[in-house]
């Protein structure tokens, strides 16, 4: 059976309610592309000077921010607290995380729209219990070089101390990460069913389908 293993350094970001405005600030949403957002991930936390899409000068690094501290700066798994990704629906937040190299985020909970956007882009989100999360945070404080191994098919996280935690994930989300399939193509397999539904509704609720009157 096809599987995907994510392995790497953890970035500890012990805050709750991290919103998508913090993940990628508004000035970068003016881009009409999907790529290139990595350098602006957590922009206002990561740099001490302001920037936007036209900034060419080298930015001043906030040496206190976790992404600028070794060994976290080369991490690919974020460990964070409750309700990560709340607020704006901007998918740019997920594009920025992916572009930076983040492959998985572990927390106790995530905001709904962010959750959907993440799996649509192959970014794995894992919810674990509060005590498990707290334990991982404690262990990273003791030994910052902290690599996790995430086995998606088996739904397990293995810590450097060989402790294994299991996590829940729906089959479809699991497949989304492993196969990164095209959702539109899957939905269009039901094209005929959509058409039949639509034709039925045109008769039942004709006002919904009235043509624009301009």
């Amino acid at each position, binding site marked *: 059976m096809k599987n995907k293993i994510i392995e790497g350094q953890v970035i500890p970001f*012990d805050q709750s309610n991290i919103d998508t405005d913090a993940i990628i600030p508004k000035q970068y949403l003016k881009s009409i592309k999907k790529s290139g957002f990595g350098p602006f991930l957590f922009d206002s936390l990561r740099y001490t000077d302001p920037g936007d899409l036209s900034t060419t000068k080298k930015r001043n690094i906030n040496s206190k921010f976790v992404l600028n501290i070794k060994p976290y700066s080369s991490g690919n798994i974020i460990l964070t607290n409750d309700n990560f990704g709340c607020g704006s629906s901007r998918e740019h937040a997920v594009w920025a995380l992916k572009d930076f190299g983040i492959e998985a985020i572990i927390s106790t909970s995530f905001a709904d729209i962010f959750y959907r956007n993440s799996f649509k882009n192959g970014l794995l989100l894992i919810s674990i219990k509060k005590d498990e999360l707290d334990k991982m945070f404690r262990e990273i404080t003791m030994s910052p070089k902290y690599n996790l191994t995430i086995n998606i098919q088996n739904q397990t996280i293995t810590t450097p101390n060989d402790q294994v935690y299991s996590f829940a994930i729906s089959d479809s989300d699991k497949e989304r990460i492993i196969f990164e399939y095209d959702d539109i193509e899957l*939905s269009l397999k039901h094209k005929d069913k959509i058409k039949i539904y639509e034709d039925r509704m045109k008769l039942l609720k004709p006002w919904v389908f009235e043509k624009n009157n301009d």
Partner: protein
Amino acid sequence: MKKTLYDKIWDEHLVHENEDGSSLVYIDRHLVHEVTSPQAFDGLDIQKRDIWNNNSIYAVSDHNVPTQNRASGIDDKISKLQVDTLIDNCKKHKISYFDLNNINQGIVHVIGPELAITQPGMTLVCGDSHTSTHGALASLAFGVGTSDVEHVLATQCININKEKNFKINITNKLSNYVSSKDLILHIIKEIGTSGGTGYTIEFTGDCIENMSIESRMTMCNMSIEAGAKSGLVAFDSKTHEYMLNKKYSPSKKYLDEAVKYWENLVSDHDAVFDKILSFDATDVLPQVTWGTSPEMTTDINGKVPNPDDENDSSKKQYIQRALDYMGLTANQDIKSIMLDKIFIGSCTNSRIEDLRQAAKIVEGYKVSDNIKQAIVVPGSGLVKAEAEKEGLDKIFVKSGFEWREPGCSMCLGMNDDSLLPYERCASTSNRNFEGRQGDKGRTHLVSPSMAALAAIKGHFSNVIDFANEK
């Protein structure tokens, strides 16, 4: 089986149920704006896919457009490219687009209802989290990311799991000068920013029944700030009246049939909700947020919290971090907070009723000397025209406010309207996140009348006391 309003709209739009528990749900209306759509149209082009039904789509530029000097066009080249890209995509795919000089241009969540693009019982999506606003018309509306924008463009459907049902029942009347903004902030303070995650919230009770459609929109708009993608209010005579004589109201031919259909858009008596909470509207005072999350709210007579009062160390840090960012001290009186800027606008509070409430407060007074800028940004061209007809613009301008063109403006500061570092703003918008209104800017969320009063006082003050003394 007894059904909630959410169950009814869901069942009515179900196209296909997948084995994994997700469902293909038909989408009646799709609202599109400049910021979250270019990559979706691009995706269609790359895959050579067509749009399923361009008649279901309405587009407008609102997020990054200027709110003044529009005659000269958009100066910012990057913003202009984004707006031009939307115009090009709409032309190419024959999608209705309201350009900047059209009276119907405005914030997508203001124009949807006021043009009756949104109608009861419909499903509606938009690439914006405040799409929840439209639920005030008994329609199932929620925000989606750009991948889902593309998915709905191509398939007219969305593949989702059903949410759970959450009823928030509010009894009694709000006090005079206390608005639905105060009520929803009060609710978020109680249930937290993730209290509604995984749920669709239906607001019920005599307080909601007595509320105008516009006030209901403010409630549903901020459902997302409680974590719920959708808020709902049942159809009633007020919804019925609101739906009439608008640009895209059902034609005469179908109106009776539509109304008959709409009348069923209420939760059945004894329908089962997964979660129910009750609030008493008489408990609600004018609210002011003090922190960097909408749940960090207290009432106008309150104080900034003291992190030392918290036993839990992570909560302590959470509060301390917010106070540091906001430049506030523990136990400080909310009324002692001095302000730099005032913003009246956004999809939460830029409708005619909001502007009337604010104008009523400022009439005959001047904006305080310490306020560097006070702006009113009407939600749409129609709101602006109505306000000007009523003379509200003159009241604002006479008081020292700037009267602007419609758009999202300082709610998220994508255009020129934003806070400078450390500036403090009383804002009628929906998010007080770090940097939301501008890098290092400090946002306090309030109702329109509270923002108006803050403008003339220069600091927060209780609008109920002010009105009683007036």
